């Protein structure tokens, strides 16, 4: 016995909600995007194993130190004595600021130590020494 088909189901993918879906995705990307604003100076970061991720880029202030001992914050060379003032201004604008120290592996520790002292003076106590992930043997 043969069954006769009652009705034909049209094989059409509904596209009416396509725009809604894409706009939803668009909003997600717009919210999550952080544009790279500062490129810093070329440094060779040291490697480390016990790496921790920083929660959000919005709270990070990067201090670059190159091998010649130049300190750079937000694409501007800052003398050591001014670092405290600059970081203090950032800390007052955002108390959750984490200072990320991006030192060249050949930089001298003396300068890094002086920098840490300057940070302590302005109560910038959350510090992260930026590193690359060590290649697993």
């Amino acid at each position, binding site marked *: 016995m043969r069954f006769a088909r009652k009705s034909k189901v049209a094989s059409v993918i509904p596209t009416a909600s396509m725009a809604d879906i894409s706009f939803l995705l668009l909003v997600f990307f717009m919210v999550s*995007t952080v544009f790279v604003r500062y490129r810093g100076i070329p440094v060779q970061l040291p490697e480390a194993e016990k790496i921790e991720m920083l929660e959000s880029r919005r709270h990070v202030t990067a201090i670059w130190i190159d091998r010649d001992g130049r300190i750079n914050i937000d694409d501007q060379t800052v003398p050591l004595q001014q670092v405290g003032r600059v970081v203090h201004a950032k800390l007052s604008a955002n108390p959750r600021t984490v200072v990320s120290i991006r030192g*060249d592996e050949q930089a001298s520790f003396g300068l890094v130590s002086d920098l840490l002292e300057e940070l302590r003076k302005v109560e910038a106590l959350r510090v992260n020494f930026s590193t690359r992930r060590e290649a697993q043997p």
Partner: protein
Amino acid sequence: MKWVRGARVLPEIPTASMADIAFLLICFFLVSTTMNQDKGLSLHLPAMGEGKEVQSRNICNLWINAQDDVAIFEDDQLKPLPFSGLRDELRRRLAENESLIISVKTERGATYRTFIDVLDEVKLAFSDLARPTKISIANPEG
């Protein structure tokens, strides 16, 4: 003279290309989004004048000299330590003493890389233990 309107244009915004536009924007944000997070060794510095008195038996002094050699300062003398054996040595000491603080003292002439390497080793030595990481960064002049 009066102009007669021909056909009425329906005031409708064409929505057919809406999805195309949105997808184009998505592509732009996908390409320009940077998901790479900042990573590194975190440290909480002590506030100014927050020095604590610690019993000398509860502190392990690591010393890095200007030639990037590592040594342990113990019984008023420096005992050189190969970098490869640092982690195990620290683990052994941490297992012996529950409240051991590791103090890293680096000379000004040492490279930043050596300091980071030693700090990494200290953090790794602490990582197996269920207690807070106690690291002190000693002032080179102090």
